[in-house]
C-alpha cells in the first residue's frame, strides 16, 4: 500500500517528496518487520483469549515420550497470528502488484487454510491424530506445487525469464547445472511437499520451529535482495531476477511476525502454531526458494528442518517398518534428546544455535562460488 501511495502521489517539488522513502526496499523491509512484530504483539493476547474461548486448544496425543497432558489445553492455530502479521504487514509495505509477492502470499494462504482445516478437524474430533488424512494433505500440497510450477514455467505467466525458469541452480556453482525444462515441474512439486512437511515435523516443542523458520526467511530475504539487484547479482555471478528484491520486504514481514509469535510461543508456550502455522511457514518459504531458484539453499538454511525430517523418515520407514527396530531413541530428533533427559527449553535453544550456524552457512554459499 505504501508503495502504491508513493507511485500515485510522489511529487519531487513539495513535501510529498518524502514519499520517495517508500521506493526503497531497505526502508520498506524495516517497516514491514516492525509492523508485523507490533501487529503480533497487539493481536496475540486477543487471539489467545479468543482461541481459548472457542475451544481451539491443543489435542495432544501420546508420543510415548512427552508428558503431553501438561500441555493439553494450550491454544493452537497460532499460525493465524503469523499469517495476520506477515500478510497484513506485507500488504502494507510490499508492492502487491509484484508477481513474486502475490505468489508467496497465495502460498501462505493456501497452506494456512490447509493447516487450519487440519487443526479444526482435530479440535472438533477431540483427537490429535484425527485431522485431515495424510493423502488429502499430500494431494493439496501437490496441487499447489503443480499450480506454482505451471505459473513459473509458462512464459506469459512467469515472473522470471523462460530460460532461467527451467534451469537448475546449485550452491557453489556459478552457472545452471541442468536445463530441465518441463521436468522442473517434478522438482517444484516434490520440493513444495518437502518444504511444508519439514517445518510441520519440526514443530514439536515450544519455540522450536519458529526460530529456524525466521532464520530461513532472513537468508532467503538476503538472497532475494541480491538477486533482485542487477549490480549485486552480476558481481556474485547470479542470474538477475528483476522484481525478486520485493520478496525481501515480505521476508522481513515474515521475520517480524515470527519474532512476534515467538513472544508468545517461547517456553512455556501460551500458544502453538499448529498445522496452520507450520504448513503455512513451510509453504511460503518453499515457494520463495523456488521463485528465486534457491531450493538447495533452503535446505542448507533450514538444515534443522532437514535433520528433523530425515530422522523421522529413517526411524519410521527404515527402522520401524523395514528393520523392525528403532534407529534413534525417539524421532524426530528433538524427541530423542528429550528421551535422553535434556530439558525442552535447552533442546530448543540448542536447535536455534544449530539453525543459526546453518543460516550462516547458507549465506556463505553466496560468495563461495
Amino acid at each position: 500500500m505504501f508503495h502504491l501511495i508513493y507511485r500515485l502521489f510522489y511529487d519531487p517539488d513539495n513535501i510529498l517528496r518524502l514519499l520517495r522513502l517508500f521506493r526503497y526496499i531497505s526502508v520498506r523491509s524495516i517497516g514491514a518487520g516492525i509492523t508485523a512484530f507490533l501487529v503480533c504483539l497487539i493481536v496475540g493476547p486477543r487471539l489467545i483469549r479468543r482461541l481459548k474461548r472457542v475451544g481451539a486448544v491443543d489435542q495432544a496425543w501420546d508420543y510415548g515420550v512427552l508428558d503431553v497432558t501438561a500441555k493439553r489445553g494450550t491454544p493452537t492455530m497460532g499460525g493465524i497470528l503469523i499469517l495476520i502479521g506477515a500478510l497484513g504487514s506485507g500488504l502494507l509495505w510490499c508492492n502487491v502488484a509484484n508477481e513474486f509477492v502475490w505468489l508467496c502470499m497465495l502460498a501462505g494462504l493456501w497452506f494456512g487454510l490447509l493447516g487450519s482445516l487440519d487443526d479444526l478437524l482435530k479440535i472438533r474430533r477431540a483427537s490429535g491424530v484425527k485431522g485431515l488424512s495424510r493423502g488429502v494433505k499430500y494431494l493439496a500440497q501437490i496441487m499447489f506445487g503443480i499450480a506454482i510450477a505451471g505459473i513459473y514455467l509458462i512464459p506469459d505467466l512467469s515472473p522470471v525469464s523462460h530460460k532461467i525458469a527451467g534451469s537448475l541452480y546449485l550452491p557453489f556453482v556459478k552457472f545452471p547445472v541442468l536445463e530441465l525444462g518441463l521436468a522442473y515441474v517434478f522438482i517444484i512439486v516434490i520440493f513444495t511437499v518437502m518444504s511444508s512437511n519439514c517445518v510441520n515435523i519440526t514443530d514439536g516443542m515450544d519455540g522450536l520451529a519458529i526460530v529456524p523458520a525466521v532464520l530461513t526467511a532472513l537468508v532467503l530475504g538476503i538472497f532475494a535482495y541480491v538477486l533482485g539487484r542487477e549490480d549485486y547479482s552480476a558481481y556474485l555471478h547470479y542470474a538477475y531476477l528483476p522484481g525478486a528484491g520485493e520478496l525481501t520486504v515480505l521476508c522481513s514481514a515474515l521475520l517480524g511476525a515470527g519474532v512476534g509469535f515467538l513472544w508468545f510461543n517461547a517456553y512455556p508456550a501460551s500458544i502453538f502454531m499448529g498445522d496452520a502455522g507450520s504448513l503455512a511457514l513451510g509453504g511460503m518459504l518453499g515457494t520463495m526458494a523456488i521463485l528465486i531458484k534457491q531450493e538447495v539453499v533452503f535446505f542448507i538454511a533450514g538444515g534443522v528442518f532437514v535433520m528433523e525430517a530425515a530422522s523421522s523418515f529413517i526411524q519410521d520407514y527404515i527402522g520401524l517398518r523395514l528393520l523392525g527396530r528403532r534407529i534413534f531413541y525417539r524421532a524426530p530428533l528433538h524427541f530423542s534428546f528429550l528421551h535422553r533427559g535434556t530439558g525442552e527449553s535447552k533442546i530448543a535453544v540448542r536447535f536455534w544455535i544449530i539453525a543459526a550456524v546453518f543460516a550462516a552457512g547458507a549465506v556463505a554459499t553466496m560468495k563461495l562460488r
Partner: protein
Amino acid sequence: MLSRLRRASGYSKAKSLLDNPPKSREETTKAAESMLASRKWQVRNVGVKLIGKAALEEFLPRLRGMVTDRREAGIIKRNAAEVLGARGRRDSETVRALVAALRDPYWEVRSQSALALWHLCRPEDGVDEPLYELLFGSKHSEVLGRPVIYVDEYLREKSFEVRGCAAQALGGVGRGERAFRALVALTTDDKWLVRNQAAVALAEFAAREREFYRSALGWVERLDVVCDGSISIFPIRESVNHLTSLLRSGEPDQAQIRGLYLQLMAGWHRRG
C-alpha cells in the same frame, strides 16, 4: 471366527483385533496363534502384544524362544521381554531366556530384559552376575573389586537406557558388596537419568540389605543432582528429596521407594 482370522493376516486387521480382541479366550488364542505364524514381523509383533494384553499364558514358552531368537525383529524381542516380565512366571526357563537377552545387540531388548528381571526375580535367583557383565563386561569381578570405580572408565554398556534399567534391576535382585559397589558406581554416571535410577536402586537395595543402609544414605545425599532435564524443578532433586526423607525415617516402605523409579522406557517424567 475363521473369516476374522483370515482378515487378521494383514497388519491393519491384526491391529484392529488387538484394539478389539475377541470376547472368548478360545478365539483370542486362535487369533494370537494365527498372528504368530505370520511371515510379516509387524503382524507377529501385534500377536505378541495380544498375548500380553489377553494374558495368554500358554504362549509364554513361544515368547521365551522369540526373545532369544537372533533373527527375530528387535521390536518383537523387546515386546516379548516386556510380556515375559509382566505375565511370565519366575521359572528357570524364563529367567534363562531373559538373561540371554541381556546380550542382545539391540538396546531396547537389553533394557526391557533387565526390567523384566527386576519384575520377576528375587535376589536368591542369582541373576545379578549377568547384570554386572552387561554393565562392566567380562572383567566385572576385577572392576568391582577395585577400591574406587570410575564408572566412565569401566562401563561397557553404551546405552543410558540399558544402564538405567540395569541399575533398577540391581536394586531388586542385587546381593552383597558387589551390587552395592556397582550401584554406587552408577550414581556417578554422566547421564542424570542413570544416576537417578541408581540412587533409587541403592535405596531399594539398602532397605533389603541393612548393613549397607548408612553408606547408601550417604551416597544418596551426596548425589550429583545437577541435570539438564529441568521441568519446573530438577526431577532428580525431587527423587533425592523423597529418598532422603524415606531413608531418614529408618523404616522406608519398599513400595514407596519403588514408586520413585522413572519409567525410562515410557518417558522419564513418569514415575513407577
